[in-house]
């Protein structure tokens, strides 16, 4: 067990030092600026692709995925508005 305890002490020290080093790397603008730009570029490309798909379905006279999501969201909002009104009624009732 002595050997394990000794190894673990060494590991803990290595882990602490490595974590601190990685934190400094992950915080540096030399890493963050290009990573952020790359991530943003990929996401813009995906958003553009989705927009083209939406235009395609709309041109066919069909609802796109986002149209359907918006309709479902509005239904949920309607339900919440009904709950709002019920709550107001309950608050006013003696």
């Amino acid at each position: 067990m002595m050997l394990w305890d000794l190894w673990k002490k060494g590991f803990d020290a290595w882990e602490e030092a490595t974590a601190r080093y990685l934190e400094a790397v992950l915080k540096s603008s030399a890493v963050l600026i290009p990573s952020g730009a790359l991530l943003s570029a990929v996401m813009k490309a995906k958003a553009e692709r989705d927009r083209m798909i939406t235009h395609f379905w709309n041109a066919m006279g069909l609802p796109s995925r986002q149209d359907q999501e918006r309709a479902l969201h509005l239904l949920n909002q309607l339900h919440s508005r009904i709950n709002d009104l019920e709550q107001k009624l309950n608050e006013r009732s003696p």
Partner: protein
Amino acid sequence: MNQKQEHDEGKRLWNLLSLPFRKKPAVGVTPADVIHQENKWRLLRYRPRAAGVAFSTPVLLVPSLINRHYVLDLMPGKSFAEYMVQQGHDVFLLDWGTPRNEDRFLTFDDICERYLGRALSLTASFSKRNQAHLLGYCMGGILTAIHTAVHPNNVASLVQLAAPVRFHDDGLLSAWMRTPSFDIDAMIDAFGNVPWQLMQSAFHLLRPTLPLSKAVGLVDRAWNDEFLDGFFALETWGNDNVSLPGEFYRRYARMYRDDDLVRGAMTLGGAPVHLSSIRCPLLVVTFEHDNIVPWQSAAELMTLVSSEDKQHLHLPGGHVGAVVSKSAARGLWPNISSFWALRDRTSLA
């Protein structure tokens, strides 16, 4: 090697070999009833202890939106909610549920004003004074602080558990969020909801050596069944994340980037959010080794509110461990329970 050490070594070896077949511990099992359900969120009310409720003011627990609610009810013996029920509190919990694609349109106001407001007023309706003690954990704490600042009427007291208010801090999350080349709008436009996989990866990057460290810790304490159950319960929770509604995140991220809460530039439902409007009793809890919410960022609330009755409890431990560990049952939980008990106008006990 004495007899106990030999036994522990044997147990460690057996437990390690049988890990793949180990039964997963049950999580979130404290008995509760759903008293309201709307869209994906639910309001849970924990069943009172056999001796009945001892305090007249109910308690509403508000966890983060990006994790499952059962972090506050992890497993028997390591459950904040179970402990509070045993102390005689009437405990409610807001389970945010799992957002689906259509919830990308949910706004910050929908969640922080309408949903949280409804949960709070329903909880408060169970007390004669029409108020409830409010507890927000992590992102849940940001929501409770903002809501209390604008709608203080139903709030008997506020407990902020590792909840940041100053976002421009030395933490990694703050540095990432404020990276100018990271286009938040592009992310929302691309994904709708912020995918949980993206958020989980970000949390893993906060300490990339953590999985290795956890594995070594597991081997080190594999002889302890109680530790193993807790470890796997926490792992179950840690890997059970949910996506974040896109429009909500757009506003949240802007608030984070511009430090809107501290600057007083935040609004809720059109009303300005001034943290100085918080006047109710306040308990701010921070953790020394919290690498998700630096404690200074959460402690800042103490200087911003107008409450005369306010306390800051600073404890050792990390963001999650300190809330669900054995030491929490000895320090954190009793402290919060007494805070509520002392501020309960008419104790029923």
